[in-house]
Structures are given as C-alpha cells and as structure tokens.
C-alpha cells in the first residue's frame, strides 16, 4: 500500500484490509516520503484492533515514484500473491477470499481481476463523503492483451497477482511517473492469463473536483501527464522489434484510436446523463452534510498524538 500524506484515507484503506474475511494477509505500507509520525499513528490505531494479518511500514526518506514505491514494498515481502492497494481505495470484505480462491483454482492464471464499483466522493477539511457510484466497465475481453493494449482498463485495487509473475514479467517500471500499472499489466498478461470475477468487490474511489487538492486522484489531477506518458510508452514500443509481425506500439496506437472512436460514438448521451446524475447526487449529499454538520459538529480537545500530526483534521461530522 503506497501512501503519501493522506492519513484519513490511509486509515480507511487499512480498515478495508482488516475487514477482509480472508485473514492470512500481510500488509506492507510504503510511506512514500511523507511524515512518519502521522503514518505510524494511523497504523498504531488500526493495529489496536487487528485480530489477523500483520502490518508493517516502510518509511522512505525521500519521495520516489509510485512504481518504485510498489517495488520497495514487494521487495520487503514474500507472499504467494500480491496486490497493489492504493491508499484511497477499498475492498468489499470478500475481495481477497474470492480472488485468492480464483487464483488457487486456476493454476495457469497470473492474476485475478474482480468487478469494480467506482465511487465518487468529496473530501474536504478531513472529512470524506460519498456523492454517487457507478459500475466500472470491465469484461473478460478487456483483460486480454488486445483488450488492454489501447489503454489501462482497470485500477490496481481490482487485481491480485501471483508473485511468480514477477520472475517472467519483471517488476514495475520505476521510471514511469504514472501508468506503471498499465505497462506492468501488459507484460504480465503475456506471461499468463488474467482471470475475471464479475462480482464487484473492488471500490475505486475518485474525488470530485470540489475536493481538497491533496486528496486528489493521480488520474484526475494529472490528466495531461497521463496523456504524455502514454505517448512516451507508445513511442518506446514502436522502437521494439515486432513479435509475429506485430509491433506493440502500432497495436496500442491503433487500439487506442479505435477505442476513442467508439467512445465518441456512444459516449455523448451517457456523459450527459451521468453528469446530471452526479450533480444531483452531489447537491443532495452536500445538503445532507450541511444539515448533519449543524447538528453534530464537534470540537475536540487538542493533545492527542494523532491530532498533533494531522492538524487539518479537526472537525468531523457525526454522532
């Protein structure tokens, strides 16, 4: 689990692991150059109530890329399977149980990907609340090499990998600032099949534009960066020798263009409906929050260790 200065979301992400029905897990948190005390406090709080699994923290003194952070975590563990759990995402309690069972029953598979619910949420002033959710489009076809070559088709939170795939596909590419998961997936899917479990057991959380910037998703904050890196990767692949007469870069460009055409043809009305829906739900939930806040806003004493570290989280809503 990679994290950087998002203690509230980190606390939620850890809880999502702790709540798994599958209990034989090991969580390695890579604090990617953020303040140590804050992460330690959150982990200490969480570990006070963990009957299963184990949690370890690797504090990196300087911030490195997301993929390097993943590699550091992988190097510090030796489990049979692994997941890259971003600190803002979460799982249904059955995620690991189902995914591990699927991997164990499919020896040729190098990964299992479950269905994904995308949750739009607003994060402001240390408080997070849901606005809406939707089904993330995913299918067996989108987990094949041809399905993935045009663009990233699923978030890391949805996938469990067999560790042995690292021996054939290699580690995450530390040179990539973003899209490292896509690039890795394309190498991994050559090494073996990705199994698909349609049940929506992974929650991919996306912050709405009204959220505090520090809580933002890499994909929504850095859309230009994603576009640039994708072009760089395609350029890199164009220089690679063709396999069976097919060049990876050319295939990716063609697939991306095809996907874009398809999106343009069908997406306009859907986008219109979704935006309206999300706007309505946002207004509704915010209204609820305001009212709830009036009723239940609290001011607590200073002095607790965690609060000293994360001073921004001073007011919460609730009972």
């Amino acid at each position, binding site marked *: 689990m990679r994290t950087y200065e998002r*203690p*509230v979301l*980190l*606390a*939620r992400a*850890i*809880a*999502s692991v*702790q*709540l798994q029905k599958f209990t034989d897990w090991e969580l390695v948190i890579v604090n990617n150059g953020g303040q140590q005390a804050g992460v330690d*406090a*959150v982990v200490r*709080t*969480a570990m*006070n*109530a*963990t*009957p299963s699994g184990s949690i370890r923290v690797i504090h990196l003194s300087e911030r490195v890329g997301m993929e390097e952070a993943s590699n550091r975590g992988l190097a510090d563990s030796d489990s049979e399977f692994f997941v890259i759990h971003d600190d803002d995402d*979460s*799982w*249904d*309690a059955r995620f690991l149980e*189902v995914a591990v069972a699927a991997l164990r029953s499919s020896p040729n598979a190098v990964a299992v990907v479950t269905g994904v*619910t995308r*949750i739009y949420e607003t994060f402001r002033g*240390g*408080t*997070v*609340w*849901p*606005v*809406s*959710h939707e089904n993330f489009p995913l299918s067996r076809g989108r987990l094949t090499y041809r399905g993935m070559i045009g663009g990233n088709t699923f978030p890391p939170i949805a996938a469990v990998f067999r560790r042995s795939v690292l021996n054939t596909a290699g580690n995450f590419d530390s040179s990539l600032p973003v899209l490292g998961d896509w690039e890795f997936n394309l190498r991994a899917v050559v090494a073996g099949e990705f199994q698909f*479990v349609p*049940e929506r057991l992974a929650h991919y959380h996306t912050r709405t534009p009204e959220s505090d910037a520090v809580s933002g998703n890499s994909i929504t904050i850095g859309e230009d960066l994603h576009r640039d890196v994708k072009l760089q990767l395609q350029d890199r692949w164009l220089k690679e020798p063709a396999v069976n007469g097919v060049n990876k870069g050319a295939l990716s460009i063609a697939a991306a263009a095809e996907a874009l055409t398809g999106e343009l043809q069908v997406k306009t009305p859907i986008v219109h409906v979704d935006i309206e829906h999300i706007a309505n*739900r946002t207004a*509704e*939930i915010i*209204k*609820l929050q305001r*009212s*709830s806040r*009036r*009723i*239940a*806003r*609290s*001011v*607590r*004493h200073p*002095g*607790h260790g*965690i*609060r000293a570290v*994360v001073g921004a*989280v001073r007011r*919460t*809503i*609730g*009972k």
Partner: protein
Amino acid sequence: MTVQLTAEQVLDEHPQASVLTIDFFDTLITRSVAQPTHVFAVMEQHLVASHGDFWRGFAVARVEAEQRARHNAASENEHRDVTFDEIVDQLAQQLHLARADGDMLMTLERDTELQLVQAVPFGAAITEAARARGLRVLVVSDNYMPATHLLQMAHRAGYSWITEADIFVSCEHDGMKHNGMLWPVVLSALNVPAGSILHVGDDARADGEVPTSLGITTYVRDTMRTSHRDMINTAPAVLPLSRIEAQYRNAMDDTHWDVAEVVGGGLVAMIVAAQVIDAHFVVGHRSVAGVHFAARDGYLAYQVWNSLRSRGWELPEATYTAFSRSVVWRACLSELTRDNVGRFVGDDEVLTVARLERRVGCALDSQLDRDAPIDASTARDIVLDNVDAVLLASNSLRTRLLTYLTSHEVLLSGHHIVVDLGWTGSTIADLAELVASESGDLAVLEGRLTGLYWEATPQRMRIAMHGFAMDEFGSTDDNVRLLGVIKLLEALVTAPHGSVVDYEEDGTPIFVETAPELRAYEAMMRQVGNAAVRGALAILDGTHPSGVTAVDITKESVWAAIMQVGHSPRADEIELLSHVNHVTSIDHEGNGRPLIAVAPTEPSKVTLEDLPGMYDTLIHRHWLQGSLRALANNADSRWIADEMYKLHTMTSPRWVP
C-alpha cells in the same frame, strides 16, 4: 386484541356445508420461512455452497423470472396460470443456463419446498374436524406446481389422507381461483351446489370475493401472511430473521400478531446477539482490559452478557458505561465560538434562558426573563456572552465524567472495547481521546459498533473501530439507507432509563426521563426490550425455537434484518412505531420528534418544489423509510411517497441488489 375463530367454531357457523375446499399455500401448509420468496433464498444458499459464486443473486432472478413468465402467460391467455416449466425457461434465458441446469433447478426447488414445508395449525385442525364431521375435503390452489408435487408436500406436512384426485391446481386447468375460472371446474367435478361448499383460504379476492360471488360460502384467514414483506428482497442473508418471524407467525396463529414481541424478538434480538458475539470474539482473540457496553445502546446486550456469565459462560466482567453524545461533547469542550455554539442550540429551537442554563450547566448572565421564549439566534448570543462560565462548567463536567470513568475502570491501562450502535463513531472517538489524555496514553479504547456510516472514515485515524452490520465501505445507497434508519434503531435498541445528562460529584450518572420516552416504554418498549433479551439469549445458547443460532448472526444477516424492518417495514410495524418520539436535544428535555413524521394535513396542496425540503427533514429528524411507507399507505399522500421514491432511488422498497 383479535382472537381468531377455532376450526370447530368456523364449521359450527356453516352447518350447511357438506364439502370443505381449502387453499393450499399459507392455509393448509406453509414454509418455515417468513414469506414464499424466501424459499428461493434457501435455494441460493445451497447453490452458492455447492456450485459457487455464479449463483449469487439467484433468488432475485427467480422472482423476476416468475414475474416475466406470468406476464407472458397472461398476454397469451388471461385466464390461465403460469407453469413451472415456463418460469424455469425464463430463468434459463436470463442466466444463460443449459437445459440440464434448468432441470437441476426444478428438482432443487421441489426438494427445497419439501424440506421447508409444514402444516398450518389451523389448516390441520379444520381439515381434521371437517373429516370427523363427514365433510369431503378438497384442495383448491392457484399455483404453478403440478398436483403431484402439491401431494408430496401435503404428505410431508402430515396430510397423509390427501390423494391426487383431491387437488385442483390452476396450472392444470387453464383457470384460476383469482379470476373465477377454476371454480366451475371444481363444481363440475364435485357435482354439488355451490351453497354446500365452505371454502377457506388466505386471499381476500381469490378465496373470498370471487367464490362468494359464485354462491360459495367462504372464510378468509390471512394470519400466515402477517410475516410477508416485499417479495423481491430475498437473499440468503434474510433467512435468520425470516426463520424467527416464521416461528412467531406459527406460534401466534390462533392468538394475535404481537408486533412489539416480534420486533423485539426478531430485529432487536439479532442486533443484541450480534453485539455480544462481537465482544465475545474480541475477548477470545486478544487481551482486553475492559469490555464496556455503552449506555443506552448497550443496555440490552449488557443484560445478555451478564446472563450468559451467570449461566457459566467464560466471559470477563463487563461494565455498563453511561455516557451520551452531549455529555462527552460538553466535557471535551475547550473553546466556544460561533462555529460550534450551534451544538447547544438547534436552528429551529425555541428555548428559555432557564432551559439554556440546564443545557450548558451553569447560570447565564442575561437581562431577559428566564422563562420567556427566545429564538435560536438569541439563545446562541446569550451562550457566547457567557463563554467563560460555560467553559468553566464544561471543565467541571469533565472532572465528574472522569470520576465516573475511573469508577468504571475505563482508565485502567490496556486495551478496552466499547460496544455501541455506532454510525460515525465520533462520540467514542472523543471519549477515547479524553481517556488517552487522562491516562497518559495507557488506556486505549476501541469501538465495536453495529453500523458505521460513511462519515466514520475520519474517525478511523483517531480510534480503532469495526462495524458489525455495516462498514462505511458499502455502496452510497446503503450508506444513505443506514442514515435513514438510524433514528429507528436508536429508539429500539435502548434502555429503560433516559439519557445521561450529567454526573454527581461522586460520579453517579444523572439520567433524565422524558414523558414521551416513559410513555413509549410503558406502551411497548419494555416488551421490545424483554423480547430482545430473551431472543438473544436463546440464539446464543442454541435453544431458539426457530433454529437460529450464533452461527447465523453475521454482518450480512444483521444488516439484512435491519433492512427488513428499517427499510421495508410492514404496516403493523409502522403502526406500532408511530407512537414513539425520539428525544435528541442536548438536554434531553421536551417532546422530541416522532419517529414517523406527521403527514401533511392537506397532501394535495404539497407541491413538487416542497419535496427536497421534505426529504431533508425526513432523513435528519425522523425514520425516513418508515415515514415514506406511512405516506405510501395512505391514498391521499401516496403520490408524495411515489415521487420521493423516484427522486431518491435508494429509498425505494427494494434493497437487495
């Protein structure tokens, strides 16, 4: 109280009858679940266990397949009933099943019906009495199962005297009781005048109005329907509550449906059992310095915990720890500004200076008459004008609270768990910070909560906590549903005494009793609480007559129980709870607010523009789903509920995905 006629009394009232015809499902036989569609939930449980996750959601798919098959059959011939084959064909299309799978499902459904079937006590009594009087007894049923299968079910339920020739079922005769087309078949076969038939059934139209119009004498008895809810909400998780309610239905068949007993022994018993199971789990896996059941949410569980100890269970001694949202907040108050003064005075409150003084715990310097009504803005200004006195009072309260917590060993070094209903966990988090601060971080509190709303997320970095029935990782809709039922559960899972509003100098808690709470307690909450404790104990020690045990009390089944009552309540539950007021003000004075919102006096004058404001009020001040259902149950206000269901889809009665 309505006492049902006995079988002999019914027959005595109809001495002319020479033939007794009786409806099959829910009159002659029933199942050991609360409603027919829960049979499919039992099937889904078996399918998932035997054949894997593909079958999750089967129960709902089965309901939908039958609805489509019925629609298609009616389109073709409005008089005939649907057949079992047609339903399974629809299911096979929906789930892309092979023929062999369809055959397997038909066999499984028949086997499951046979496994769950049981005689209805009244059905058994009246058929036995009729036969003893020399009446011919026949079964007349609207159903898609063939007579051969109904015969098997009847025999399994103990009606060994029934033969296939005694059964008339709609799917075999191109006509139904409901539309009157089956009755001519029955009359023709019997060759007796309609006036010599007494028909008994549970459907007001099919077993009452229609045969009566043909000259048949009828007796409608629908007691087996009392436990029905929305048919679509069926999944394995509903089964524990379903079995408990089915057991109550059977036991109350010849008396009356005692709603308070059923709500207490059903939903509340499951929540209480869950609280105890969760605390038991923790103390069995970790070293725990203290188990604290939070007042008032933990009162019932505390009774159960102590009863189990007295029965020899190896459980550590627990405490019943009295704190409330308001005393913890006041005790932790270190600054008072216009930002947080709203906690003392709600936006729409009208107070007096005297009442305000009781809220803040000190005398307030003001030129106003102490007993004159003042609005919220004025009240807040008075509090802010007296900020030093208020903070001093809070500090004093903090000392008394700490005295109390010390006497309850909450400040002992080590890891403590606090059992509470939950929702956001902020009160326990506030308390945890107070305890940590006072103990030098030696005493650590963990929240073990029944449900956690989305706003729990920030609290997770302050305190370790787990939600038993729901965590905030559920869908948006489930989070809103939970928010809608919070008021109901706070009212149901409670103690005989009022909320704590302060402590004596020696730490003795001061509880405040309110008139509405006392009235509700005497009227029904005492019974709800007693039934809950009895039910939870029976579940935990494995003696519950429904067969539900601790193994059945899971996050999913507790959530499903909360949703069955809280989100899709029956009319009888709404009627029961319409007398309950929820008192939430910081001083716990006043009448509070009714759980079920009072309907607009002139629903026709409500406009669409009013609905967003109404929704906001319902979800924050009342039991949202119960209030909507109450509106829907009234013809004049039904349109308001319908519009709400459309506007806020998560409030619609369906909650099983």
